[in-house]
């Protein structure tokens, strides 16, 4: 019966292809809040030529049983076409875009630029008193960079949430 594995928590990155129609996001979010699942991040945008299909990437966590539940619950929503647990389909890429504003002067400006260079963050806006850096990567990298900017005058952070795709030839189609 309850073996140790059952209560082990894991993260899951779930890709969902849905009909691009009003209310679909409310359905997905309502499912998560109504059933008490957590959402760490959620992104959505249309992905096909005629904008009829959207792809949602949800990062969530829970026991294996809960994650299986989440997938089954998503799958039975009528406008949902495909549900794929990228964390299970083998290796996958996860990326997030961040814009980060640092307000600083003098030596701190030089330090911010040096770190940005090391992290491959691009300067997308600059004034004499501020920078906006653009950066993509996985969550750890974005968080590490944010932490370094904090003492240098971190003013604002905006992140898109995670998008993910499987490596190799496997592709998710509606």
């Amino acid at each position, binding site marked *: *019966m*309850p073996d140790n594995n*059952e209560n082990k928590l894991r993260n899951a990155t779930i890709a969902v292809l849905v*009909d691009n129609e*009003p*209310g679909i996001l*409310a*359905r997905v979010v*309502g499912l998560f809040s*109504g059933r008490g699942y957590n959402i760490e991040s959620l992104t959505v945008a249309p992905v096909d030529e005629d904008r009829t299909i959207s792809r949602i990437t949800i990062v969530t966590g829970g026991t294996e*049983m809960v994650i*299986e*539940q989440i997938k*089954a*619950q998503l*799958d*039975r*929503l*009528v*406008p*949902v*076409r495909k549900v794929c647990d990228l964390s299970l389909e083998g290796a996958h890429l996860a990326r997030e875009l961040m814009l980060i504003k640092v307000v600083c002067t003098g030596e701190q400006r030089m330090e911010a630029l040096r770190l940005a260079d090391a992290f491959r963050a691009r300067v997308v806006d600059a004034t004499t008193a501020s920078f906006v850096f653009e950066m993509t990567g996985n969550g750890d990298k974005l968080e590490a960079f944010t932490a370094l900017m904090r003492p240098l005058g971190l003013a604002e952070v905006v992140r898109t949430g995670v998008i993910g795709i499987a490596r190799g030839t496997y592709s998710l189609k*509606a």
Partner: protein
Amino acid sequence: MSAAIQQNATAATQTMSGAEIVLRALKEQGVEVIFGYPGGAVLPLYDALFQQNAIRHILVRHEQAAVHAAEGYARSTGKVGCVLVTSGPGATNAVTGLLDALMDSIPLVCLTGQVPTHLIGNDAFQEADTTGITRPATKHNYLVKDIKKLAGVMHEAFYVARSGRPGPVVVDLPKDILIGQGPYHEAPTAPHRSYRPQREPNPEMIAQAVKLLKGAKRPIVYAGGGIVNAGPEASRLLTEFVRLTGMPCTNTLMGLGTFPASDKQFLGMLGMHGTYEANMAMHGCDVMLNIGARFDDRVTGRLNAFAPTAKKIHADIDQSSINKNVPVDVAIIGDAGLTLKALLEAWQASEQPRHTGALADWWRQIEGWRGIQCLRYQQEGSIIKPQHAIRRLYEITQEIGRETFITTEVGQHQMWAAQYFGFDKPNHWMTSGGLGTMGYGLPAAMGVQIAHPDALVIDIAGEASILMNIQEMATIAQYRLPVKVFILNNEYMGMVRQWQELLHGGRYSESYSAALPDFVKLAESFHARGVRITRPEDLDAGIREILAHPGPVIADIAVAKDENCFPMIPSGAAHNEMILGPGQEGGVKGVTDEGKVLV
């Protein structure tokens, strides 16, 4: 182009008003009856209804009742029930019924009026965000903003309602869409773009299930409402399978009637108020086959003590029901009827030997549990026991031999009906299982009677529940529906009183049914017959009189006020920690705070 194709092409592009499109789609979907209540936003639909005869409209007296009536209609016929309500309060009044249908997997299409599209979001008169409010109370819902999509949405709504695990679907119809002109399309023949539930079970899983079942020494079949939804053939196959394999069978509340109650292999209902033998067999089994049930908390009791030694096979059409509460060893996704057919065939084809001796031991053990006679009661003295009233009602309907449908309200009387009325056929028992909605039974009975005008339809009620939708007596009078209301009047919200007695020190907070109406006069004021029975010796004659009356009847049966419903698995307890009857309530003192928290 041949003439036929040409005709088809014109049919496909025929233009008509939105209201006409809706009615045409209802007709094409086989709708004969619609339960509804008018209002400003749906006037165009009512106007179109007025000008046709194919669809019969039943005017209820409250929108909640329209939905329950459609549930009764759907569950007793296997068809999709249909509801029509206006915007705003019409839609919000329907919400309880929709959630009731969602939890009990009843196929419904509910049409709701909406303010015109250009006013949506403006807090217009009788505007409600109906799709927002009903999203978690429906299987799916639609707001139609483009008349070109109306016909397609209507057909899809019916497809979604009846496919896979059935459920209620709302179609929200802005008034300008109903008035505007648009094209009618027939139902598509191509498969749905995304919603295609799996019906055929996986043969590999069937083989694994049969292997486990053949090797079982203490097997049990636990069958639920999914078998009702799969159609009467599924119940026939269940009966065949259970008889062929010689296994014991138990039913959930929703599954009663899918296996004949009169069969020797039937252990009765399981769960919180299930029989001792059913629950003990569930606890002690080594292989469990669950078909069309969902390991509801009313069935499992404390999860970590649920059937601890059993290998579990779960067959369900809804993948999300599998491994939700209880991890299982074999999962079969598919239609219950097709699954049973596959199980039967695989069983017959398999050459694996069986433990017939072991099965005989298992039955001996079960007979021991049966010997406890957990449903035994003594009808003595001058007060009618509620159990006896239901038992006699059952026996007398058996004698009369008319086709009988039972609906219930919610409370002790509902559990006693499940325990003491025997169901040998599916679709003849309608009760609110998942939501437990007081006020369900009377409108549900109405819906059943509309579908089966010549049958005996009885709502077994409590005096508190019946008041929740009593206004439907007017609908019953208007359509001359000979529904019989059988009130077990204990002058208490008995089920609440029972929990207060057992779990809250006998402090009967607000559970007394004060200021009750005179039910006889109430019946008469609604043009029905009223009967009051107070003495045990008048019970049989009274029941015969009620059942023989050609019109509607409210029977007010005065029953023992302090009777409790047993057996009972207290919240948070295990199947083998059942309380069998008075005198044993001491056991309830052992209920932990954890258990008390549970509903």
